[in-house]
Structure formats: structure tokens, C-alpha cells
């Protein structure tokens, strides 16, 4: 049970850690100042959520690892984030589409987690859910604005959706760990969130004049259990972990 809980917390924390890092890559590079600051705020929110999840993960593991140890001293195969969040930023449209696909899931998942039988998880979710609600508000609005914008922005958003949609489906795979945790009331069964998610995404896409691609494949959950990541994760870690690898134990 402790193993499954540790695994569950890593999945939660790694999703927000890797996406937070990805989004932070825009800092100083976004197309306009306002978006630059907004993206940095989102990245910081996600890193804040990460530290809560990973700190708790370290306590459950009981091996004396802190949130920082887990973030900066694990190698790629020990990361249990979904593949969606480690994909490259692409153009601004692809970043926004990825953000919306994740934000909508994060909001629904966190709402369910506020009722977790694990008090600590419920408390973290309670705090994070307000941030997630704003993230959805923002990324959803931008998806609609760009989807139903100019011919070029529409085309870019549709291209982004075509690339990202199959990856989004990994969020709703229930494996044995999820099933055990769901049975104990610790997390919602991911499968049960999918119908609501799809309906919400489809409503947004209709407003954005975008259409869901026929996904001939869905990713099978190799990211969340660490079996296989994309080639991009190693590159993220090289940059993210560089300082702790080069100067072990360095602190502010």
C-alpha cells in the first residue's frame, strides 16, 4: 500500500514538475510580455504543486529523500509523468494546446482529490485546485482565441491538437496501482474522468472551430509507470538537474 501511494504521489508530482519546467522554458521568449509573465506564473504554480506532492512522496517512501532529492537526483527511468508533459514546446500554439489538455485534466483530477480518503492529499488538492481553475480559464480562452482566430492561428492550433491528442489519452489509463488506490478512495479511477473530460474538451474545441483528430492509436501508459519515455525527457533532465549533478548538495 505504501508502495502504491508513493507511486501515485510520484505520478502527480512528476506531471507538474516536468510540465512546469517545460513551461518555464518560455521565460523571456514568449511572443508578448503579458504572455511571458502569465506563462512564468503558471510554471511557478506547477512547481509549487510539485513540491507539495514530492515532499509527501518522500515522507511516504521513508528513505529520507526530500522533494529536491526526488526532483534533481532521479534518472529518466524513475520519472513517472505522462508523455504529454515532456513533449517539446513546439510553437506557442502547441504549448497552449498542451497546457489546456493538461489543465483540464488537472482541474478535474484535483477536484476529485479534494475528497480523497488521504487527508494530506485532500489538503494539497484543496490548495492546488484554485490555481488549476485559473490555469484552465486562461489556457481555454487562448485555445478558443487562436483556434477561432486567423487562418494561420487556426491551422497551427489544429496541427497542435493532431499531435497532442493521442498523448492526452494516457491520462485516463487505469493500471493496477491506480485501481488499488481508487479502491481505497485515495484517488479517482482515471477511467471515470474520461467521459467528462472528453465532453468538456469537445465543447471547447467546437467553440475554437477545431476538431478532434481520429486517433488511430493512444499511448499506453508507458510514461506514468516509467517503462518508456520519449527521447525528450533525458534532455529536460540534463538541463534541469545540471547544477545538482555538477555540484552535489549545493544549496542557496
Amino acid at each position, binding site marked *: 500500500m505504501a508502495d502504491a501511494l508513493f507511486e501515485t504521489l510520484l505520478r502527480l508530482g512528476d506531471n507538474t514538475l516536468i510540465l512546469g519546467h517545460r513551461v518555464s522554458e518560455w521565460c523571456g521568449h514568449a511572443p*508578448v*510580455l*503579458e504572455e511571458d*509573465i*502569465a506563462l512564468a*506564473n503558471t510554471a511557478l504554480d506547477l512547481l509549487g504543486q510539485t513540491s507539495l506532492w514530492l515532499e509527501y512522496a518522500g515522507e511516504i517512501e521513508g528513505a529520507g529523500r526530500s522533494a529536491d532529492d526526488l526532483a534533481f537526483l532521479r534518472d529518466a527511468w524513475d520519472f513517472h509523468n505522462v508523455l504529454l508533459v515532456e513533449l517539446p514546446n513546439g510553437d506557442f500554439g502547441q504549448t497552449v494546446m498542451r497546457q489546456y489538455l493538461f489543465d483540464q485534466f488537472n482541474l478535474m483530477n484535483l477536484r476529485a482529490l479534494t475528497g480523497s480518503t488521504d487527508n494530506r492529499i485532500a489538503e494539497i488538492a484543496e490548495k492546488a485546485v484554485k490555481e488549476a481553475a*485559473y490555469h484552465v*480559464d*486562461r489556457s481555454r*480562452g487562448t485555445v478558443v*482565441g487562436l483556434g477561432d482566430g486567423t487562418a494561420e492561428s487556426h491551422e497551427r492550433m489544429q496541427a497542435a491538437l493532431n499531435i497532442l491528442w493521442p498523448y492526452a489519452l494516457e491520462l485516463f489509463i487505469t493500471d493496477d496501482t491506480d485501481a488499488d488506490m481508487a479502491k481505497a478512495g485515495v484517488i479517482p479511477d482515471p477511467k471515470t474522468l474520461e467521459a467528462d473530460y472528453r465532453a468538456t474538451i469537445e465543447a471547447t474545441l467546437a467553440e475554437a472551430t477545431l476538431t478532434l483528430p481520429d486517433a488511430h492509436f493512444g499511448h499506453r501508459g508507458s510514461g506514468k509507470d516509467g517503462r518508456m519515455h520519449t527521447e525528450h525527457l533525458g534532455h529536460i533532465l540534463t538541463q534541469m538537474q545540471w547544477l545538482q549533478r555538477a555540484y552535489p548538495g549545493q544549496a542557496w
Partner: protein
Amino acid sequence: MSKEWPLWEIFIRGQHGLSHRHVGSLHAPDAETAVKNARDVYTRRSEGVSIWVVEARHITATAPGDKGPIFEPSESKVYRHPTFYDIPDDVGHM
């Protein structure tokens, strides 16, 4: 059509009971996005409880060149300040 987003003036109310104050301006494609941008640009450190946005072109302002006729006449009218009568002690601090 210009590709530039319009400019919005941002007003934020710091705490209940105080009025909104102008804090700066930013660009946004529409009013809703201007509110979101204002939230992200101007309230990162808990500066506000309420945000107003007004598209800058809707603000009509006095021209700096009109300073003389508009503001100077009031400078010589000290009797407009309530300083020509005594306030009874009983009133206390006003």
C-alpha cells in the same frame, strides 16, 4: 486592421474600502483577456481584490497645453478651502 493588440489601462482596488487606483497599462486582444493579463502582471504579490480594465482609447484626458485655463484659476481662490471658521472643540478630530 492593425495587428497590434489595443492598449488597456488597469485599475486595481488594493483592499476593501479603498477605491480602484491606476497601476499601469498592458496589451490584450479583448476585455476578458485584459483582466486575465492584469491578474498575471499586476497582482502576483497579492496586490488586489478587484480589477477594472478600460481600453485606453475610451479615456478622455485633459491636454497638457490646457493647464493654464483649466487648473490655474483655482489657485487664487483660497476661500474654497474650509479654513475661515473655527471648529468647536467638541467636534474632535475631523
